[in-house]
């Protein structure tokens, strides 16, 4: 699917990518991690054919600089920061639909799964949407068309737990239906670890770790959660409510279901209220 050979990129005297070799097979799910300035974004831009570079980049055997329309028809991209587009959501959908030969309905359906009714916001300028809404639109545009490679840059950062849940389900469906290759960029491994089966870490423009990880977490897996609190507090009640958990009459026992890939994030949230928690039970649903 992806073949990078001696990929280097300079900005004047600054070497941002340093002779990167990377080979990715169809269907692999890769976490591209590294601190700010490690070279993740530059690497992604080289994959998208947006930068000239030394060395070679091939996606399905084609150079994205030379065959950009053919290559990018197979690539879905969700940027970390939504672009400040002045055009309306409707115009953006139409533009994408025309270029990718994908019906708008397919993207609308994905947005609906993420909890966004596009009919209600399509007349609004894209830039006027909330951060979460923008992210949902961009995910819908990427997942709503048939891609062989999905490049996602912190894709779920602005999503609420419910939308994250739906997003993981969508990824699971798409990867199950076709051998889609995922490349998910993040500066934190715990954010993306449950989604991937390979971790590539970058530092100073080089790959410093390339590791296969146990593919034990199903993207569409569910976890049953039961939390017992030592006392009822509004702050933790609000946080648990946002995760879709519901309380009993005493407001001390909370139960619900979370997405399996979200387990680390959920535990991270719980850790902020550790003094209020008496018991935690997390079980995989069979």
């Amino acid at each position, binding site marked *: 699917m992806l073949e990078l050979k001696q990929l280097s990129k300079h900005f004047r005297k600054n070497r941002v990518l340093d002779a990167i070799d990377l080979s990715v097979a169809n269907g692999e799910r890769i976490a591209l991690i590294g601190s700010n300035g490690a070279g993740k974004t530059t690497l992604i831009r080289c994959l998208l054919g947006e930068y000239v570079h030394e060395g070679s980049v091939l996606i399905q055997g084609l150079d994205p600089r030379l065959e950009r329309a053919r290559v990018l028809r197979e690539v879905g991209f969700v940027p970390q920061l939504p*672009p400040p587009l002045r055009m309306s959501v409707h115009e953006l959908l139409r533009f994408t639909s025309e270029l990718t030969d994908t019906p708008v309905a397919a993207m609308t359906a994905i947005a609906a799964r993420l909890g966004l009714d596009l009919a209600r916001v399509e007349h609004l300028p894209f830039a006027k949407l909330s951060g979460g809404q923008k992210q949902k639109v961009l995910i819908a545009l990427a997942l709503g068309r048939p891609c062989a490679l999905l490049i996602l840059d912190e894709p779920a950062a602005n999503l609420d737990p419910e939308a994250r849940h739906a997003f993981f389900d969508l990824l699971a469906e798409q990867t199950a239906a076709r051998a889609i290759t995922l490349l998910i960029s993040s500066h934190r491994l715990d954010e993306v670890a449950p989604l991937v089966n390979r971790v590539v870490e970058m530092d100073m423009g080089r790959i410093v770790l390339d590791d296969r990880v146990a593919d034990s977490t199903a993207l569409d897996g569910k976890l049953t959660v039961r939390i017992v609190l030592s006392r009822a507090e509004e702050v933790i009640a609000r946080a648990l409510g946002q995760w879709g958990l519901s309380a009993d009459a005493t407001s001390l026992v909370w139960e619900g279901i979370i997405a399996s890939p979200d387990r680390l994030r959920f535990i991270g949230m719980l850790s902020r209220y550790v003094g209020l928690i008496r018991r935690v039970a997390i079980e995989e649903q069979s």
Partner: protein
Amino acid sequence: MFNDLKPALRLEMTESLRARWFMLYALVFGGIVALLFAFGLTESRVLGFIGLSRLLVTYIQLVMAILPVFVLISTVRSVAGDREAGVFEYLLSLPVSLSGWFWGKLLGRFLMVFAPVFIAMFGAALWALISDIEIPWNIFLYYTGLLASLSWCFLGIAILISVLSRSADVAQGIAFMVWLVLLLFLDLILLGVMIQEQIPAEMAVSIALFNPLQTFRTAALMLFDPQLIVLGPAAFVLFDLFGTLGYQVFALLYPAAIGSLCALFAYRSFRKGDLL
């Protein structure tokens, strides 16, 4: 390329329609024509110009002063600004060919730049028709061509500056300098001073010949002023050299050629370099 050109063209036009620069731009040219009518310019006579001819010659002079700087600044700001803000990063990740994207954007912007200037002039002609004022159609048509040529010229220059500059601020500074230099080398301003200082006549004529603003101004006025009283010394030589028809054709083609060359060079640089 043509499959991608249409969506890119439409996108640029809809983006422009939403932009503040376009609202201001359209308002300025519509406002100029309205003011010219309001001040009764069609009733007055200056240097033999009367009726709609009088209005058109005043309008075209104002356009020459406003259009280039407006096109330069708004285009370089929006193109370089979009690149800085990450708009290009996302839109160029979609399967659009670079030729379709570049020429679609350029043509879309050309239409948006030219339309308000033309519509304002066309509105004046319509009003004249209703008010039973004689319309000099030959001048109207020639001015339409001149305006299209001037718009394309400065759009080409602006897009070249945008592509070559790495930031919106730098691009804006360069665009302003280009406009200032061309303005200073108008026949009646710096060039007049140079002639006074007795620089070689060939140099003065060459500068006038190669300055698209001067070309536009000379061509716009020569239809009215065969003696070229209001033009300046270099233009007089040029007029003598080309003849009326020759200069009219030159004035239409030369700015368009500059714009096209700049656009082609910009496209080449855009294709060969980093897109962001």
